[in-house]
């Protein structure tokens, strides 16, 4: 029972009009570079590339809230003044691990610059260096855990130890995921993200984790010495 006036009114906005002022507003399938969007920035799904960056930035906010909750829980726990609060000595290997992680951020940034400059082998090299440094960092974290265990500090031994394991465990899990992502992204052609976008998204995540680690280290120091 569709009134012809109504239906023509309603369909008008969708009709691609020759010479219309709509510009790229009404884009019909098949127009432009290979059917992927008028300017070629469309990804495999025609989705604008920047959405992946937005998505990662948003996800980082969510992850940050998780760590923020843990940090505030730790501060509260400390503030309770309970007898079992014993300051935790920072395992010495953490300093080395921090240096490794910072270096990995630099190597990833380097990789990104080389990619933009068109230097594909150079990009690959520094991308792989980042992956290796990340793996080294995780190995170092395991060593840190071993150092604590040697000192008979387990997750339940004291609240500071407990939080330390939780923080480093959660951060390490996120970083492990990042390493897997770097390896997968480095070896396969991403079907839906352009190479530069993959790098940008990976960089966002990785630098977040580096920054988070530096923050956590400073937080451990603050708890130890305040």
């Amino acid at each position, binding site marked *: 029972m569709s009134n012809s*006036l109504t239906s023509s009114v309603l369909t008008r906005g969708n009709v691609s009009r020759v010479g219309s002022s709509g510009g790229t*507003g009404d884009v019909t399938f098949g127009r432009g570079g290979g059917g992927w969007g008028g300017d070629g920035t469309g990804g495999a*799904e025609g*989705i604008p590339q920047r959405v992946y960056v*937005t998505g990662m930035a948003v996800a980082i906010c969510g992850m940050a809230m998780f760590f923020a909750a*843990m940090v505030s829980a730790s501060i509260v726990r400390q503030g309770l003044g*309970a007898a079992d609060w014993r300051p935790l000595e920072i395992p010495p290997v953490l300093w080395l691990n921090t240096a490794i992680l910072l270096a990995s951020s630099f190597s990833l940034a380097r990789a990104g610059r080389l990619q933009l400059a068109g230097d594909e082998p150079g990009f690959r090299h520094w991308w792989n260096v980042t992956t290796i440094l990340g793996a080294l960092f995780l190995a170092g974290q395991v060593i840190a855990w071993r150092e604590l265990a040697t000192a008979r500090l387990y997750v339940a031994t004291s609240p500071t130890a407990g939080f330390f394991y939780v923080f480093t465990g959660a951060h390490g899990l996120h970083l492990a995921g990042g390493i897997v992502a770097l390896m997968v992204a480095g070896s396969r052609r991403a079907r839906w993200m352009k190479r530069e976008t993959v790098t940008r998204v990976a960089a966002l995540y990785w630098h977040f984790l580096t920054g988070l680690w530096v923050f956590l280290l400073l937080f451990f120091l603050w708890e130890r010495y305040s």
Partner: protein
Amino acid sequence: MSAGSAVSAAPESARRAIPTSLEAPTGFVRRYIFSTDHKVVGLQYFFLSLTAVLIGVVLSLLMRFHLVWPTAHLPFVRGGIMTPEQYLALVTLHGTIMVFFVLTTAPQNGFGNYFLPLQIGAPEMAFPRLNSISFWLTFAAFLCLLATCIVPGGGPISGWTAYPPLSGLGEVTGPGEGIGQTVWIVSILIFCAGSLLSSVNFIATIIDLRAPGMTLGRMPLTVWAWFVTAISILLAFGVLLAGGVLLLLDRSAGTNFFLPAGLVVSGQVQAHAGGSPLLWQHLFWFFGHPEVYIAILPGMGVVSQVLATFSRKPVFGYRAMAGSLCAIGLLGFVVWGHHMFVSGMSPYSGLTFSLLTMSIGVPSAIKTFNWLGTLWGGRIRFRSPMLFAMGFVSFFVTGGLSGIFLGQPALDSTLHATYYVVAHFHIVMGVAAIFGIFAATHYWFPKMFGRVMDETLAKLHFWLTFAGAYCIFMPLHFVGIAGGVRRYADFTGVDYLTALLPLHRFVTFAAFATGAAQIIFLYNFFHSLRSGAQAPMNPWDATTLEWTTSSPPPIDNFGGKLPRVYRGPYEYSVPGATVDFLPQNLAIEESRDVQ
């Protein structure tokens, strides 16, 4: 026209063609199981919620039955008569299912997934694969939760709020507190993961995938609601995740985040020391309060949409409505302490949280005034979506007003943990938010399924539910005022509680009657699904973009041609136009033809 109409949503250079990969997938698995089509994922969430709400309602009817006939013999209960721990397990499961798998799922992930891309003129969500993963995580969480019913020891009895030490020490504190509580926590953690992923999808989609011309100021209020809700989910669920991890460690790794020293449970001294039960409460309610706004905001968006459509008027005060959604979302994060007035938290904090809590009543009131303003001077058609939307307004007013009692610590000192609180949150969440879901279902059923629901049955269902829900929950205010304590399996131990049994009997009868009335909805829904009349493209003569495509929409939403947006979302009864609605994609030049 709305200001900012000159600003395009996304740079033209980022505009894109309809993707080739959005060809209809073949095979049952790709089409219905691991689908990347947001419409299928939306329906998956919707039907998951439908299953959950049916279970949740049955649980509540069992609870209501037991409260009035505590010694009745029930054939399906182990031992014949329901024990207090079985009752409390029902309480816990009911709350968890309803809050998480119904109210956090259907309004946002159900309808939001289906209609967000349609309403913003996008062919799909930003991350279709992630969308499917989010759903299956939620489904896994649901199975995990149901598993608590069958694990040794039974389901947890600590309520959906799971306060330690009751929930933190294991089996020693009570039945169901062993494996059941652990599995419950795992279910919640999985749910958190699914929700967080889904919220990332929503936010990125709204920021980056709006059609040309769809500025923020032209987004339907449903989209605004999904946006604010997704941000709230993003910022709140991470905190629940953290709390849940710490609780799990306390239970299984011997840590002491929430467990203080000197605990003696059933004569056994516990080895824990130094933790704080209040720390859990802070973490939980920091999540828990935004959670209730997560449950209601999408419904508010739907109500605004439906009221405008069926009054044939723009939403009154669109900017105020969008702004108040944002204000509620924001303020929702700073009021959690009103759940903890008598918890042992500093009484000074109580004063601060009280002030902030009363402040959040302001944007809620603004929304109510604007809804009434939308109706005012309208040309109201009382179709079933409209009835549910108006019912939402009524229940939201009632439930919101009981909130201003609870938001004052002096009054909360008497009303905390009584049936007054139960009445309050059921009216806003268990009725108003559900009415939002009903309104959305009736409104969008033609679009989702290409068929029309039976209007007579829908109206009958509405009247019975409207009257029934008030009959259930209004009396509970009085139970609470008289001091009726919640989460009691049995009232026969306390004199003044026994005196309130007649009220409870009335409530139980009303609950069963209203529960029965829902069969009308179920029949209408499923019967119309199979043999309802064919739905036209735009049965309600509505203006938003989902009504410009077929019912149901094609796989890429708009049949190869993405819309361009020229006007705001609620251009109804525009003076000078010959039709009383101007769709958002109707260009200005063309609209002149209709004037």
